[in-house]
């Protein structure tokens, strides 16, 4: 199978989806698996330099900024810890988007699912008092999983029952979750005693995720969530490629009509995929509140759910690719902090670079054209318009 796509106008639908499947199944092709993403990152970084220089800085300033970016992401043990801390929720949220991509769904709702998961986890974290940590931590994580799964179930159910497009419903559910968090943080159940601003009670010490490198220095924030996230990646990889359920997910993603004809339940798959995706996002939210923040504040998701889309695309919806992409984005985000502090270049540049990376990954033909590569890979096509 080659990566070149010859679209036929006779049957655009199955063909479009096959082109995406083709890409996914040709993961062993090193050009599409590693070279294109690497060149995409490089090109995005080069454009980043131009943008820095556009704001009146010299080339040297831009290089200083990138040096700070590198220092802040891998320059020290502290920096590596920060990178991995930032990567942890991105792995889980990225898996959430990736598993949906595999089944032909576009889960933009990771942000909302993450918020709901975080709220459930924080509630479990401060409500139960006096539990030993080996009971309390799993309980709080499970609460997060349930919260996210509920928020993922809604669009999955609506898609299966009524055909409501998941892109619209998940965008709307993101905003609803955001407002719901604002509201909940002002209720008696959540709001911290004696505070007027929306901030939740602090998670009990028994529910806080232990620091992995706390024995070296308490400032190293990387926590148990990282191991959970990597384990989740292994689980999703096993689920997708070693089980019948996973095969059904991918079959539905490749061609829902054919899958239905083969006797698979497309509607059940949609619901199940969104529930699993929501659960993963909820786990990401739980990891954030139990491992990093210890409390919930308005919009504590801070755009992780949107970065997750980029992570899933960059990782080609492959669980291990997602882990690699999440570590890269975690590094960009941790390094971006350093860049802002020591080189005085705003951290928002990082989201510009991330957006550029997605453009180049989604349109490999651009990269092929810039670097004169042969045989441009097919463009990513997952959605089939609102109607499907």
């Amino acid at each position, binding site marked *: 199978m080659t990566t070149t796509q010859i679209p036929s*106008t006779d049957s655009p639908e199955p063909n*479009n989806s096959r082109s995406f499947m083709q890409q996914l199944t040709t993961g062993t092709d090193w050009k599409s698996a590693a070279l294109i993403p690497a060149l995409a990152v490089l090109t995005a970084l080069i454009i980043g330099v131009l943008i820095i220089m556009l704001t009146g800085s010299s080339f040297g300033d831009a290089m200083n900024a990138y040096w700070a970016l590198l220092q802040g992401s891998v320059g020290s043990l502290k920096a590596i810890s920060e990178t991995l801390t930032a990567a942890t929720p991105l792995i889980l949220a990225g898996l959430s988007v990736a598993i949906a991509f595999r089944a032909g769904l576009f889960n933009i709702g990771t942000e909302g699912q993450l918020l709901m998961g975080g709220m459930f986890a924080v509630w479990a974290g401060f409500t139960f008092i006096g539990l030993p940590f080996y009971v309390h931590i799993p309980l709080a994580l499970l609460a997060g999983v349930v919260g996210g799964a509920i928020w993922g179930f809604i669009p999955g159910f609506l898609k299966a029952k009524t055909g409501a497009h998941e892109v619209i419903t998940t965008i709307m559910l993101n905003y609803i979750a955001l407002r*719901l968090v604002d509201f909940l943080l002002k209720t008696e159940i959540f709001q911290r005693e004696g505070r007027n601003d929306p901030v939740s009670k602090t998670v009990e010490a028994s529910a806080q995720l232990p620091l992995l490198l706390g024995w070296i220095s308490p400032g190293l924030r990387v926590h148990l969530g990282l191991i959970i996230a990597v384990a989740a990646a292994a689980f999703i990889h096993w689920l997708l490629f070693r089980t019948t359920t996973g095969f059904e997910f991918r079959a539905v993603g490749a061609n829902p009509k054919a899958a239905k004809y083969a006797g698979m339940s497309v509607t059940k798959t949609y619901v199940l995929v969104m529930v699993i995706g929501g659960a993963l996002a909820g786990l990401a939210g739980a990891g954030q509140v139990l491992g990093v923040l210890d409390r919930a504040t308005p919009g504590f998701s801070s755009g992780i759910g949107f970065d997750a889309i980029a992570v899933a695309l960059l990782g080609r919806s492959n669980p291990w690719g997602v882990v690699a992409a999440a570590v890269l984005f975690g590094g960009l985000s941790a390094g971006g902090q350093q860049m802002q502090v020591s080189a005085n270049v705003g951290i*928002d540049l990082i989201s*510009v670079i991330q957006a550029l990376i997605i453009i180049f990954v989604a349109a490999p033909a651009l990269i092929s054209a810039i670097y004169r590569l042969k045989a441009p890979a097919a*463009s*990513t096509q997952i959605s089939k318009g609102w109607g499907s």
Partner: protein
Amino acid sequence: MSTPPIDREPIESYEVTGKRTKELTRRQIKKARITGIVMFALAAIVMFFLAPAAAGTSTFGLSFADETIQLPPLSVPSQGSLWVLAMVLGFLGATQFFRGFQSRTTVILGIAFAVFVFSIMVWATAGQEFSLISMLVSTIARATPIALGALSGILCERSGVVNIGIEGMLLGGAFTGVVMGSLLGGWVGLLAATLTGGVLALLLAVLAVNFRVDQIIIGVVINILVLGLTSFLTAQVLVKNPQFNDAPIFQAIKIPILGDIPIVGPMFFDQTIIVYGMFILIASVTFLLFRTRWGLRTRSVGENPKAADSLGIKVAKVRYLAVIYGGMVGGFAGAWFTLGTVGRFDEGMTGGRGFIGLAAMIVGGWNPIGAFFAALIFGFSDSLQQKFAVIETPIPGEFLAMAPYLVTIIIVAGLVGRARPPAADGQPYEKE
């Protein structure tokens, strides 16, 4: 696989259609029952929760102090009117439940919701005075970027290109609008905002039409890119040079005579140039899409690009034009946020209005007029939330803020009637 005997086919399809019609009517009855119950529930809420808590009179102001023709404020006894409104809802619910309004169900349901919203307003303003007219005026103002955003989406999607980057186009327009407006004046700012939307749309068109990238991904990217770029430039440039972030604001222009009509005057004929622009664009795009050759070509490309191509229509060119026009409308809408209201740019100031515009497009059935009315509903809920925050009602503002999103989900889920997108929406096309 062997081919089935030819004579079996008609029988099978007959059976299938027979079943389907029966099922559909049963489903219709069920749907009528459910909507009837919903109306009953609304009546019950008004009757048992709102009415007992409403004492005194609710006063609605209908005129601004500086208007030439003054209308007396409308005062109604709160509790009595709530009884009446509950009875209206109950009557509608009973009729729907037992007889059904059939094809008019959607309209009746809309009326029922309107009555319910009015009941909430009566209840919330019991014993207080509430300026209805200022809320109506701000409804129009707040509906403007939403309606224009929806129009931007309609232009793109009628040609078969999904545009979920409306939010980014609004934000981009708002940013360049304020920068150019600060440097060279409001009109230049408005032009720059429009062009910015066009440039972003060009990116969408190139990637969608030439590179056949997934259009939803491009939309997501445009949103992230513009949010990042404008936030970066704000932090790096605008904060240090506040003179770039201080644009003149367009003032409301009162149209003589028409502007003096009570209620309607301030709502429609005493607004800023951007609001008038919205009315003109809605009308002209409706005309262009449905009454001109260009519109027919654009719609045919969005419905069936292959057929259009075989008739000699250049699919790529038509899509490019429609998407760029759509982007320009989106950029123009972005100017509302800066040049139309506050005259300065803040990070992420569009706050999801582009997505609401997207929702208005779907709710309005990919039709400019429909989208305008949907935008009015969203604008209304937006301004209701603002006004209720001022008069301190027992309803948390967060729930009012959720309303547009909930309405969208309900409508997309087909409870009120399924919207049909252009058939080739989101599908790349390549000539054979």
